[in-house]
């Protein structure tokens, strides 16, 4: 029972990590809290579902399509919501409000398209293969989820720390102006970061949609709320922190749901978030110092 819940927690937690990675990336580099990230996640799940049900595409192609859709939607988000504010050097409050607006628009569209219904992937989209190892029930889907998250995270780390483009991204994260003096175009970097964040959200959408076999228009909201917990626990903008905290959150949640109730799980998680913010705002895994950028109007 315990080992089974641990496994389930790690599977869900790895998807939380994937989702929160994009969120924390955008925060670390653009210093923007993108509250529309949950809606991009929903969009990814929708794209994959419709690609399979309406276009009869195989799952890998549909997943790729979802990743692309998430990435493009996220870039569009940057162009419409954040770039005008960035050019005006508006306070961070403005960007948050704008992203809430974008999230509402996307969620509302998803609601109209799906007619407020909970949709499922058709039977046989993913082969149901189950192994029993020492009384543990392991599904092929679970392994695929953990595997694809691991591959994506490694690819992201390689991109950020081993390529020229990644170097540019990190330079802009430290100081946009200095990076510009060195001949880096911040607009391109921002577009890249938003594309990656959206693509990660889209991938997370497909994986969560498959794992629970349920796709509906508000599925992004609980994930967004959990992403807050993940990025605060892991430290805003920290990649390793987001991965660790995501796994931790998944395990804590799945154990407390199993041994108590889902209500207790929520209270525990958000109580933890509140506590960590008060005691250690830089996060459990972040450095001891946090730059509180207070910009107001």
């Amino acid at each position: 029972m315990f080992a089974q819940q641990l496994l389930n927690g790690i599977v869900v937690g790895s998807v939380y990590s994937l989702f929160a990675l994009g969120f924390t990336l955008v925060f670390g580099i653009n210093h923007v809290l993108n509250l529309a990230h949950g809606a991009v996640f929903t969009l990814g799940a929708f794209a994959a579902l419709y690609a399979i049900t309406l276009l009869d595409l195989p799952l890998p192609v549909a997943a790729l399509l979802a990743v692309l859709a998430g990435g493009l939607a996220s870039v569009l988000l940057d162009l419409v919501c954040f770039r005008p504010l960035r050019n005006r050097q508006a306070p961070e409050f403005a960007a948050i409000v704008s992203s809430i607006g974008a999230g509402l628009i996307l969620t509302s569209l998803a609601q109209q398209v799906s007619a407020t219904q909970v949709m499922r992937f058709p039977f046989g989209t993913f082969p149901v293969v189950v192994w029993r190892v020492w009384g543990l029930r392991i599904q092929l889907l679970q392994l695929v989820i953990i595997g694809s998250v691991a591959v994506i995270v490694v690819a992201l780390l390689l991109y950020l720390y081993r390529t020229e483009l990644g170097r540019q991204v990190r330079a802009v994260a430290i100081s946009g102006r200095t990076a510009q003096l060195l001949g880096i175009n911040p607009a391109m970097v921002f577009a890249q970061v938003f594309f990656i964040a959206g693509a990660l959200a889209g991938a997370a959408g497909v994986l969560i949609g498959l794992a629970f076999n349920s796709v509906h228009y508000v599925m992004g909201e609980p994930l967004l709320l959990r992403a807050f917990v993940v990025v605060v626990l892991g430290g805003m903008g920290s990649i390793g922190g987001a991965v660790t905290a995501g796994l931790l959150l998944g395990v804590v949640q799945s154990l407390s749901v199993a041994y108590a109730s889902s209500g207790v799980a929520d209270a525990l998680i958000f109580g933890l978030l509140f506590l960590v913010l008060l005691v250690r705002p830089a996060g459990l895994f972040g450095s001891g110092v946090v730059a509180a950028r207070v910009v107001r109007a």
Partner: protein
Amino acid sequence: MMNYLAAYRSLLDLVLINALLAFSQYVVLRAGVFSIATAGLASIGAYTAANAVVSWGWPAPLGLLSAMLLATAAALLIAVPLARLRGVFQAIATLAFVQLVLSVTQNATSLTGGALGMNGIPRWATTPILLGAVTVALYGLWRLGRSWIGRAFDTIRQDETVAVSLGIDVSRTHLLAFGLSGALAGLGGGLDAYHGYSITPDAFGFRLLVACLTFVVLGGRVSPWGPLIGAAILTVLPEVARPFRDYALLVHGALLILTITYLPDGVADTIGRRIRDRRLRRPGLAHAAPVA
């Protein structure tokens, strides 16, 4: 004419309740605190008010008073630790507070009726009472805005370092803003409970939080007319434009983006500034005092 008014009376009531919640959000934003706790505080107010009448048999006015007191106490309680945080971190912490309240109200079944909520709350908050509450709140906020407190709020919002150098006690002012926000949210939530016959935990979740924020962003963050105008526009709009009703959220979202991008001060403050500029340009009035 009277029939026409009667038909829209429930809409007016809704505008008034929303305006109170918008006031609660407005107070903290004006003081430069990015708290989005209003939904959670309103939930505390609503459940206190409902329990006072339904479970404990108190008279409604007493229930309303206790709703305000409890919500204020809750706001002050979270304000003390929140004084350490700024900006985005304040927003996330208060969001966590709203979620905490939501999960407590969903699970403390004996006190809140769980996910089904509480029913059979007698309607006490009639239109005149709501109108009275909004008028008092508006007048109070207007007077407050023109006093030293309002000036302290404005200074802290614009530049905290300057505020400190001017001898303004930032944490005490923030505490005051939080307390006021709690009282107004408690009032709004309590009146909501006494108006709608029933309350559910979900009504005080993320959706309400976004709505309150939208009211203030659209209306304006400096003049107390702002939240009232914002609440009025956003409550009436989906009703008047019936075909858009299914797309109410979409309209909300588009308005948020358009307002923050092209009208960052909100409707009321932009109009207020226009009027003030015109008045100042008139000869002989060059030294007219600026209007808050």
